[in-house]
């Protein structure tokens, strides 16, 4: 995990939406170095999600990478399509980003099969306002122009993405492990109440 290798066991890359936008995407867009500089940039064609291994930053069962925003999210074997409404990402009371959720489908749109691969794609919002394009489903980026050294005009073209297989949640290991009570624990918890009722009745 790049520059974080000196951390002791137990630390894992597990960024919040806000951190992704503020610490990573905003700095990337401003041409500032990200610290730690661990999220790679995958500029050219988009990869199939199972191809990300070794190219994107892997954290648990999730992959992170920077890319340019595009309307055509097509890969060699399929495409990403939006599956629900965009969410805003807030920081310090301001809307700082936009989070799109997309699902991966294999094949041509006419006869595509939706998979369990999910992508969260984060966009910057400028000046705490929503981009005008985000309220409609039209493009949030029109052209893939090159950097001109002016961060403010460039920012909206970068996105940071998190890709994961939604069926593999229980194998992640460090996300939910021990953080949810099992169904049986809940039963016992509930029964504990009745222990007390019966005790006080006796």
């Amino acid at each position: 995990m790049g520059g974080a290798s000196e951390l002791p066991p137990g630390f894992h890359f597990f960024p919040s939406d806000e951190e992704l936008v503020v610490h990573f995407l905003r700095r990337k867009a401003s041409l500032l170095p990200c610290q730690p500089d661990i999220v790679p940039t995958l500029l050219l064609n988009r990869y199939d999600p199972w191809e990300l291994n070794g190219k994107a930053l892997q954290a648990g069962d999730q992959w992170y990478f920077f890319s340019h925003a595009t309307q055509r999210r097509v890969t060699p074997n399929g495409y990403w399509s939006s599956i629900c409404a965009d969410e805003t990402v807030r920081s310090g009371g301001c809307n700082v980003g936009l989070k799109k959720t997309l699902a991966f489908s294999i094949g041509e749109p006419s006869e595509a099969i939706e998979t369990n691969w999910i992508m969260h794609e984060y966009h910057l919002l400028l000046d705490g306002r929503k981009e005008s394009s985000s309220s409609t489903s039209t493009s949030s980026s029109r052209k893939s122009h090159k950097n001109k050294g002016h961060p403010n005009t460039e920012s909206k073209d970068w996105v940071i993405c998190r890709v994961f297989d939604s069926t593999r949640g229980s194998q992640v290991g460090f996300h939910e492990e021990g953080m949810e009570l099992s169904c049986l624990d809940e039963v016992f918890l509930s029964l504990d109440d009745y222990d007390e009722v019966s005790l006080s009745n006796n």
Partner: protein
Amino acid sequence: MSISVNGQSCVPPGFRFHPTEEELLNYYLRKKVASQQIDLDVIRDVDLNKLEPWDIQEKCKIGSGPQNDWYFFSHKDKKYPTGTRTNRATAAGFWKATGRDKAIYNAVKRIGMRKTLVFYKGRAPHGQKSDWIMHEYRLEDASSAADPAAVTAAAAAAAAAASSDAAGQEDGWVVCRVFKKKHQHKESGGGGGGGGKHGGGGEHGHSGKAAAAAQQGLHYSSSDDALDQILQYMGRSCKQEHELLSPPQGAAGSGRAAASRYLRPIDTVLGGHGFMKLPPLESPSAAALTDTTPRSSAGGDAAHLRGGSGSGITDWAMMDRLVASHLNGQPDGGVAPADDHQLCFDDGAEDAADCGLAFYSAAASRLLGGGSGSGSDDDLWSFARSAAATSSSTERLSHVSL
């Protein structure tokens, strides 16, 4: 006390301290027990009796990011000089164990045990239950391998392997993870879009994961060991039922009536997935008994185990047993007395018990699993295989498949 250098957190953005159970046990707790230095003082020592759960967050903060769980070392303080029970009372309340301890395995062997505790405000027995949960991890102790209830069919082999190198009671140090129980709110799937909609401050870090969890059904995400626990309860409850319901005739009826008062909370807990909608379960035929020669008491009980099946109350009987066992449950992992009524693990009744347990394991996994986790399927199959090895009624177990 966060880990920091010159007042600045040295946890880079995006990183969280969220160790796996194996990291907690094999790295942190082992080093603690061996009095070795741990890089960056991430997990600090805490006197559990002097720290209220709501003060833990401040005391055990790591880095500057949002945190949903907190970690500390604690030295177990004996309640009574001669006993083995631990004093977990604070000024405002007490920690009470719930359920049974869970064995923690790495890829190779058992490495420790996890106890789940709930914080109650006030004083026992009138405490008020809170949402604060603690998982207390201890390294493997040898005595637990001798606990008959721990030796279920599924765990027997692994436990035996683990006990050979178990290091005994490890010094009294435990490592704890404290978190606040989330109220079960079903997030509608939507493919992962629901993820960021958690209310509340500290939770937005989980969005990606929560979305995934929402898709696969949060309820069952950790049901892998549930079957094992149910089986352990079965082992205990057979005996207890025998004590509880002395007259065999009509006992099932009265037991049911008594237990049905308690069934509602279970139904509530299981939410929309209640067992009431279970498809009727096939029953193992009583003929299984004829090729074994169980002792009379065991045979009587084994028959009683299945007695209900003819009248279609099999799953009720199973629930009775679960409830009855809990209502009579010894607190905090008590030792099961080795009396003659311990039919489930009697040699003479082994076949019958295996058959019965396999049957109930099927019921249990239906009850808990619904159409869910592959984990429980695996458990079930490994159990079924081991049962089949000792039982001649292989074909009878075939219906266990889901």
